C-alpha cells in the first residue's frame, strides 16, 4: 500500500495527506497558476488603465499582417493545447512513445508561436516602436505591449523547456503520468492567458481602415 493509498483512506481534512485527493505536486501547480493569473491580471489591468487614461493611444494593428499573424498564433497555441491533452491521455494509458510524440508536437507549437511572435516584435521595432517611444502616440504603448507580450513569451519559452524535461524524464520512466498531467496544466494556463491578451491587446487595437 503506497503512501497515497493510506492518505486516501483518511477524509480530506482529518489528516489525509492529499487534500482534494490530488497529489501535492498538482496542488502546488494549481496554486502557482492562481498566483500567476494574478500577475497577468495585474498587467492587463495596468495596460487597460494606461490605455483609457491616454487620449492618443495608438491603434497600429492592420488586418494584414498583424491581426492575421496574431490569429495564426492563437490557432497554433490552441492546437498545441489539444496535442498536450493527447499527451496526457497517452501517459495515463501507459503509451510512453505516443505521449513523448504528442509532447514533442506541443513543444513544436510553442516554438512556432515564439517564432511568429518574435517576427512580429522585429516588425514593430523596425517601424520605430521602442519601450518608451513610438511614431504614433502615447509612448506607453511600447512599454505595455512589450512587457505584457514579453512576459507571456517568456512563459511559452520556459514552458517548452519544462515540457522537454518532463518528456525526456517520462520517456526514461523517471517521471510519472501525473508529472505529465501537471506540465499540461501549466501549458494550458499559458494558452488561457493568451485568450485574454489576443482580444485586449490585438483585436481592440485593430485599425479598421
Amino acid at each position: 500500500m503506497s503512501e497515497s493509498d493510506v492518505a486516501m483512506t483518511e477524509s480530506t481534512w482529518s489528516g489525509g495527506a492529499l487534500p482534494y485527493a490530488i497529489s501535492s505536486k498538482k496542488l502546488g501547480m494549481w496554486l502557482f497558476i492562481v498566483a500567476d493569473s494574478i500577475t497577468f491580471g495585474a498587467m492587463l489591468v495596468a495596460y487597460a488603465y494606461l490605455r483609457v487614461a491616454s487620449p492618443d493611444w495608438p491603434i497600429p494593428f492592420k488586418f494584414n499582417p498583424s491581426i492575421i499573424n496574431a490569429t495564426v498564433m492563437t490557432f497554433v497555441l490552441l492546437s498545441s493545447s489539444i496535442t498536450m491533452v493527447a499527451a496526457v491521455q497517452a501517459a495515463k494509458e501507459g503509451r510512453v512513445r505516443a505521449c513523448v510524440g504528442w509532447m514533442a508536437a506541443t513543444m513544436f507549437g510553442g516554438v512556432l508561436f515564439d517564432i511568429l511572435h518574435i517576427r512580429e516584435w522585429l516588425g514593430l521595432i523596425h517601424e520605430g516602436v521602442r519601450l518608451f517611444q513610438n511614431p504614433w502616440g502615447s509612448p506607453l504603448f511600447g512599454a505595455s505591449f512589450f512587457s505584457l507580450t514579453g512576459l507571456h513569451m517568456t512563459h511559452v519559452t520556459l514552458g517548452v523547456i519544462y515540457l522537454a524535461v518532463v518528456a525526456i524524464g517520462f520517456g526514461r520512466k523517471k517521471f510519472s503520468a501525473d508529472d505529465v498531467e501537471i506540465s499540461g496544466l501549466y501549458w494550458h494556463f499559458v494558452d488561457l492567458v493568451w485568450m485574454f491578451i489576443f482580444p485586449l491587446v490585438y483585436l481592440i487595437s485593430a485599425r479598421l481602415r
Partner: protein
Amino acid sequence: MSSVAVHAHASAGMSWFMKVWGCLLVLTGAEVFLTYEELRLEVMLFLLMAISIVKAALIIAYFMHLRYEKRSLFLTLIPALVFVLVMMVVMFPDSFRIQTMRLISN
C-alpha cells in the same frame, strides 16, 4: 499506480476534447469577425471579454480537468481568484479622472 491516477480517469475521451478544441477555434473566429463589425467600443469590449471568459472556462474545465476534480478544489481556487481579479478593476474610475483632468488643463 497510485489511486490518485485512478481518480483522474473519470474524465472525458479524446473525441470530446476535440469538440472543445473546435469550439475554441470557432469562438476565436467569432472574436476576429466581431473586431471588424464597427461596433461601439464598449459593446465590442463587452462581447470580446464575454467570449474570452467562455474560452477560459472551457480550457479550465476540460483541458485542465478541473471539472473532473473534486468540487472543493474548484471552490478553493476559482472564486477567490475571480474576486481578486475583479477587485483590481476598482481603480478604473481613476483612469477616467486622468482623462478629464487632462482635458481641463488643456
